[in-house]
């Protein structure tokens, strides 16, 4: 190997060319990061270039969830980075968490979904609302990737309106009996445990930890997705499942409990979606300079320059928004509606950029040689889950007017 072919990302190459991604930093926002933040970002970027980019088009094409990535995510520390080290987490701040999500989703939104469900929706509620025994039993195994977890809130008939859920449990003396079904649950088919939100006999929502192998519990896979194809999605079906009483999360009940988890996950999405946008922009920028039409690089045409300039503008704005939101979260000062604004803004921005970037690639843009179509299709889930684009608008509307439009 000659030194000018040395790259810091190993030698694995898939069917598409080597991953040369570089993130834009037009406003020198790196000045706002610590050296440790930058090391975290470069490490996760190297990880993605080695473990995800060379294979992702193939996984997505085959709708294959690469289960071995779970252990690798555990090893690199992508699960529960903000959870305390006492329980196997990273003990890192929210800026670090954001950067990790940005880099993973830069690779693929489905891979980021796997990681953010495990961290924000499974480890987070156990960490925040769990008993000491529950934390000790589950968190280290989830952090290391020995176990995969999932989060069951959405039901077939209750998506945007989770408070209408019908999944319920009854007190049967020394255990609970759980009945109902959850739908659209990321990680479900391969999950060892599920954090399930269900109503007690008085109609109050609680979190329960349901383990694979409990009688009456099954996780059928959802097929035919044209989005997040490398992430596995399924249902959770509870048919008189006996759940030990010590599996109830004692720390918090009511809809506010799952909503707190969603706040954490939505924050990660705000960073993640911009990662996907950066990947599309980076690819478009390179292509525009290399592709010759009418005897010139297409990047010399004003219409292409407009597209690129607008992409960079929107990415830069979102980067600053995400950074400030992270600082507020670290200070314990971020509100749900502030998180809604960022999630909504980032995903919409990313979808626009994916489409424009795809156009810049012309016909080549529809193939798996380039990442835009995959990102674009993935982002259709991201704009829907964790609160749809419009529901976040209504959360902001309620904040502005004091009058909720969705109750």
């Amino acid at each position: 190997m000659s030194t000018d072919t040395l790259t810091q990302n190993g030698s694995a190459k898939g069917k598409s060319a080597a991953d040369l991604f570089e993130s834009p930093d037009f406003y020198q926002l790196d000045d706002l990061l610590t050296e440790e933040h930058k090391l975290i970002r470069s490490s996760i970027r190297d990880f993605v270039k080695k473990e995800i980019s060379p294979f992702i088009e193939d996984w997505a094409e085959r709708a294959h969830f690469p289960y071995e990535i779970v252990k690798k995510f555990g090893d690199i520390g992508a699960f529960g980075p903000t959870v305390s080290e006492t329980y196997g987490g990273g003990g890192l701040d929210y800026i670090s968490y954001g950067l990790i999500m940005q880099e993973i989703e830069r690779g693929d939104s489905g891979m980021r979904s796997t990681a953010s469900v495990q961290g924000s929706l499974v480890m987070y509620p156990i960490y925040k609302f769990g008993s000491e025994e529950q934390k000790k039993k589950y968190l280290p195994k989830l952090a290391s990737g020995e176990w995969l977890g999932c989060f069951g809130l959405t039901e077939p008939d209750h998506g945007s309106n989770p408070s209408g859920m019908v999944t319920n449990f009854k007190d049967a003396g020394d255990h609970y009996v759980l009945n109902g079904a959850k739908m659209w649950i990321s990680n479900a088919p391969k999950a060892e445990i599920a954090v399930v939100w269900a109503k007690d006999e008085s109609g109050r929502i609680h979190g329960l930890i349901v383990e694979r192998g409990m009688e009456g519990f099954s996780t059928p896979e959802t097929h035919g997705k044209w989005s997040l194809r490398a992430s596995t999605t399924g249902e959770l079906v509870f048919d008189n499942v006996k759940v030990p009483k010590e599996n109830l999360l004692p720390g918090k009940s009511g809809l506010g409990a799952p909503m707190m988890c969603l706040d954490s996950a939505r924050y990660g999405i705000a960073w993640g979606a911009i990662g996907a946008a950066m990947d599309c922009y980076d690819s478009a920028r390179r292509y525009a300079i290399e592709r010759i039409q009418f005897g010139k690089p297409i990047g010399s045409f004003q219409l292409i320059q407009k597209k690129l300039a607008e992409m960079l503008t929107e990415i830069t704005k979102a980067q600053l928004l995400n950074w400030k939101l992270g600082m507020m979260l670290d200070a314990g000062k971020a509100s749900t509606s502030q998180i809604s604004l960022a999630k909504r803004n980032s995903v919409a921005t990313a979808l626009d950029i994916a489409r424009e970037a795809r156009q810049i690639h012309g016909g080549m843009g529809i193939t798996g040689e380039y990442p835009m179509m995959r990102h674009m299709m993935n982002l259709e889930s991201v704009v829907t889950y964790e609160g749809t684009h419009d529901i976040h608008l209504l959360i902001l509307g309620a904040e502005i007017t004091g009058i909720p439009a969705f109750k």
Partner: protein
Amino acid sequence: MNILVCITHVPDTTSKISFTDDNKKFDTNGVQFIIGPYDDYALARAVELKEQNGGKITVLNVGEAETEPTIRKALAIGADEAVRINAFPKDSFFVANQIAKVAKEGNYDLILMGRESIDFNGGQVHGMVGEMLGMPSLSPVMKLDIEGNTAKVAREIEGGKEYLEVTLPFVAGCQEPIAEWKIPNMRGIMGARSKPLNVIEPDNDEVKTTLENFELPPAKGAVKMIDADNVSELVDLLKNEAKVI
């Protein structure tokens, strides 16, 4: 097993290279710095050897304060402690002197580094350090296994490989495939915060070279395509235009 790994702090391999000060100074503006890729192999092998045999890894860099993020990365990858010799690495002899001084005091079983840095590509430091310490020095080492007090080493030589056995301690200049580069994980990065990084002043200011100025290699010319049947045109161009035959 007590291992010293010497790392360089060098421009990323994709950096655009330019100079300032009348071509006397490398322009670091906008340049990302990394652990020298060959040093990174040495460090990765050291981490594996420590996993197998136990012991301690000390990472050493001769450099000014701005190299500390690079040193922290080495700590995050798995070194236990670090030494920074607070001086600009003026030339190979100067650097070798600083390393030898630390090595004499440290009682190391192994002193590993890259076969060469990727800024000046001198490839001299390991040889000089070996000489200064009176130890064998081998390079480029592409395989290194330890059995008790001896090491089995494979070295790349012209047209083949050379297999050697050498008694510890010794110095090795490493290259791939001695180990795979290690990506620091989040736990390693957190742990690196509290690992010791000792800064010591240089010992001996002697240098053997002085820098006159830098020059970039000539820009790559355009490719000329010549029809496969037209050998005489090719010969003509090689003779009269490229002037290589």
